[in-house]
Structure formats: structure tokens, C-alpha cells
């Protein structure tokens, strides 16, 4: 089977307790996630991206339509644990997903729930902590760590369950720039070296630049789907739905209005500089 997750005609509605109104958050969405791929889902706050994340591992079940994980429908109550073991989740606020007050105890929480034997759990915990370079902190209390370090612990907690896929719901939103870079580095490493399928949900476009595929979500609908460079070239669209555009892209886009030859498919600083030099014939005097 080539797809690890398949969403078919998925809609999700949310009932407000105090009113009769229902809010449609995901609208008839179809999406397949390839095994081993790195997919980035971009969307602004309120685009439905967090809801979509929770549909991927059965935390939410669709109001209509189906989500399949490895061919198993997330509606099947009895497979709930198996699905959550296959698709792990990392959330935005690292503080709210750490259960134990000792780092290694927290990382062990998942495997312990799965009933893994203690020796194997110990091995998994050590490996997971080494993967995110937090092994030396195994006996610390999470409270004293930085935001980025806490988020690494949260990731280790998921790795220790040995999932095939990890969904990360805005894992960097509450971190400082240094913490943000760190986390993205580890996410990319997990995909590349451990072969884990990654679904990264974010509103920072820069974080999507190394993904295999970028999906843009707006108002519960997929409005764009493709390779990062193709998606990023359509800046007008991305800006119109309130996404964060890297300053390099912003610069090239503004320059394109003056000179149509400018290629806006670029994100890196080096390439941007080269593009400007060649498009505007800036030569050494």
C-alpha cells in the first residue's frame, strides 16, 4: 500500500453548544498522504488545519466521509489505539502535552500505554532521546527546560511509540527563532533518516521549503497542492489568504511588479541575491 493516510470526501462540522448553528470546518476534502513523504499543510489561524490534523489519527472522526490509516477506517472504535500508534501527534504548546515530571518518564508514557515490556521501553526511550539530542537531560524535570527543548521531549515521546507517521500541529508557533530552527531540523531529520512520514502543519511558509509537497488550506478547502516552489510562486494567492510569506519571497514579488522577468520561485537568501543580480543586470562597475 502506497498511501499511509487516505481522506475521502471528508467533512467536519462543529456544533456550538449555545446556538443551533453548526460550523462547517472541513468541506468535502479528498487527500492521500504517501508513505515516507514530507507534506506541509499551510493555512492561517482558523483555516481548519488543526481540525484536519486531528482527523488524521481519529482524535476527531469525520461528520461525513472517511479517513483511512493503513486502510483502517478511523471510525472503527476497536482500532483506535492501533491508529494512534501508527499516526503520532505533536501539538503546539509543549507544556500541555508533557505528562510526567521527569523527562524519561514522560517519553516512556506512550510505550507504557502500549504495554511494551520494560526492557524494550527503556531502549526506545534512550533512542528517542538520543534522536532529538536530549539524552543528557533524561533525568531533568521538563519545567526547567526551554520551550524548544520541551518540544523536543514531546517529539521524543511520540518517536518512542515508533509511529509510521507523525503529524505536527504548529509545533513551532510558541518558540523563539532558535527553538524554531532546531525543531524543523529534527523534523526533517526524522523524515530523511528514520523514514517517518511527516505531516507538518504551520503558517510559516519558510518551514515548508524542504517539504516534498505543500498543501494550502483555506476555509476548510484545499486551494493549492504541489511542490513548494510551484506553490510559493503564487504569492498573490498566499498573501490573500493571510499566510506568512518569507521576506525573500516578498522582496522578489515586489520586484516582479517592476520587472516581469523576476523568478519568484525562490526562498533562499543566496538564490534571491543571484536572481536580483541577473534580472536587474546589476554588474560590478
Amino acid at each position: 500500500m502506497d498511501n499511509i493516510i487516505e481522506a475521502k470526501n471528508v467533512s467536519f462540522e462543529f456544533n456550538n453548544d449555545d446556538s443551533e448553528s453548526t460550523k462547517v470546518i472541513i468541506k468535502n476534502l479528498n487527500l492521500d498522504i504517501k508513505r515516507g513523504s514530507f507534506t506541509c499543510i499551510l493555512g492561517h489561524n482558523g483555516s481548519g488545519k488543526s481540525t484536519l490534523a486531528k482527523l488524521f489519527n481519529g482524535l476527531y472522526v469525520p461528520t461525513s466521509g472517511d479517513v483511512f490509516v493503513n486502510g483502517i477506517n478511523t471510525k472503527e472504535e476497536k482500532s483506535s489505539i492501533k491508529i494512534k500508534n501508527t499516526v503520532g501527534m505533536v501539538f503546539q504548546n509543549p507544556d500541555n502535552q508533557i505528562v510526567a515530571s521527569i523527562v524519561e518518564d514522560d517519553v516512556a508514557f506512550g510505550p507504557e500505554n502500549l504495554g511494551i515490556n520494560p526492557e524494550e521501553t527503556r531502549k526506545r526511550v534512550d533512542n528517542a532521546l538520543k534522536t532529538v539530542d536530549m539524552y543528557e537531560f533524561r533525568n531533568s524535570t521538563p519545567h526547567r527546560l526551554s520551550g524548544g527543548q520541551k518540544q523536543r521531549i514531546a517529539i521524543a515521546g511520540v518517536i518512542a511509540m515508533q509511529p509510521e507517521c507523525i503529524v505536527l500541529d504548529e509545533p513551532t508557533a510558541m518558540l523563539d527563532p532558535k527553538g524554531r530552527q532546531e525543531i524543523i531540523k529534527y523534523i526533517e531529520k526524522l523524515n530523511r533518516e528514520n523514514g517517518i512520514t511527516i505531516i507538518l502543519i504551520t503558517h510559516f511558509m519558510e518551514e515548508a521549503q524542504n517539504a516534498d509537497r505543500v498543501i494550502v488550506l483555506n476555509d476548510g478547502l484545499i486551494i493549492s497542492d504541489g511542490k513548494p516552489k510551484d506553490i510559493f510562486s503564487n504569492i498573490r494567492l498566499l498573501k490573500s489568504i493571510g499566510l506568512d510569506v518569507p521576506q525573500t519571497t516578498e522582496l522578489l514579488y515586489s520586484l516582479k511588479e517592476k520587472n516581469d522577468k523576476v523568478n519568484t520561485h525562490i526562498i533562499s537568501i543566496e538564490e534571491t541575491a543571484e536572481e536580483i543580480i541577473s534580472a536587474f543586470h546589476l554588474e560590478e562597475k
Partner: protein
Amino acid sequence: MLKDITFGQYIETNSPIHKLDPRTKLILLILNIVFLFLTKNMYSLAFAAVFLITIILISKVPLKIYLKNIKAIWFIVVFTSLINLLYGKTGKTLISFWKITITTGGVYRALFLALRIIILIIISSVLTYTTTPNDLTDGIESLLSPLRYIGLGAAVHTIAMMMTIALRFIPTLVDETEKIMNAQKARGADLENGKFRDKIKALVPILVPLLISSIRRAYDLAEAMECRCYNGGVGRVKMKRLKYGLNDLAALIVCLLFCAGIIILNTLFKQVII
């Protein structure tokens, strides 16, 4: 600070007592307390005191720290002693005026009880000084686990899980309270002055945001736990299993000797104070 509750009153000195299994420490503490209450005369109580001093020395935690605990309960010690001083009617009469008579028996009784309470408090703090709250939680869960045979397994697990989460979140909530207090102070909130009623009113701007954020955290945590395959503890296997060692056996033997000593001294010296 409350923030450091993860370590509670724990003091790291790496003594042989620290290395004991928390279950051993819990059981031995209970044994100790029971036999402390069985002491009947000054001899067996003195023996208990000597035993306690030995334990304090082994724990390597400075005596000063233990004595701090007594400061907190001096009122109870004095009050109990006074009551007993007045009610003891045995022995020679020392002073007698109005309706009050103080006898030698009363004095003995008062001293005896004061000492017993002090020993009780100190022996209990040996446990908290040498065991982290996490280990204590694990120990309690493990000791209570036989309750599963009468269908209370889930309850025991739930209580232990709640203790674990409380220990984890108290420092976070303390931080958060501090932040909200500062934020409202910056908006001119006066938290120190005013009458009792004003003070209660001043709590609203702190408690409401704190409550809202705690509920949000609780939801988030519940989802995160569910995502990590938690389903109420069914089929859960802990990575760290408590294991008894030879040191635990040794501690048990020492403790049993202590119990035996109390009984022997109680029977050897018939002079009974209580």
C-alpha cells in the same frame, strides 16, 4: 518554593536511606509509627529516640532541617503537654491550688507525650526528605495495587495518575499565576492593600484567567494523552518497576529489631506512664 514541588522537600544526600525502595520506606514508616505508639515507659521511648537519632545520622540530612519541622508544630506539642500535665493524677502532688493539681505523674505524662509527638514528626519527615514525590507516588500505587482484587484497580491507577499530573503541573500553574498577577498589577490592580472584601474582589482578575487557562490545558493534555494511546491505564506496563534489593531486606530486619526492642523494654520495665 512551591515551584520546586517536583522535588518537594526532597534533599539529595545519596544516603543508604535514599537508596531504599519507596515501598520499603512507606511500610517501615508505618511500622515505626505503630510501635512508637506502643511505647509505654521512658525506657522504650528513649530507645525509640536513640533509634531515630541513628536514622537521622544515616540520612545525612542536617539535624537543623529536621528541627525546622518542629517549629511548625510547637503549638500542638505544648497544648497536648499542658492537657496531660493537668489531667495526670498519679504520683506525688507537686503543686495544688484552686482546682488545679499537678502531680509527678502528670509531668512525666506531659514530657512523654511531647517527646513522642516530636519523634513522630521527625520520623515522618525522614520519608519526605529522602524520597522524591514521584517515587512516593509510584510506591503508593504499587502498595495499593492489591486492591485490584476487590475491583478497585482502576481507582488506584486513576489516583496515581492524578498525583503524577498534579506534580507535573503545579510548577507550571505557579508560573502562570505569577505571570497573571504581574499583568494585572501592571494594569493597576492592588493586590496587597484594602479590606478583606476588597482583597477577595481583587482575586477575580487573577482567578478567572487562571481558571480559563487551566481548563484549556486540561483539554490539551487529555488530547495529547489520548494520542499517546492512553486509555485509562488498561494494559499499561511501567518502564521503571520498583525492585526490592538486599538493602531493603536489611532495613526491614533493623526495623523489626527496633519493634522487638520496644516490646522487650515495655515488658522488662513495668513502670507504665500511659
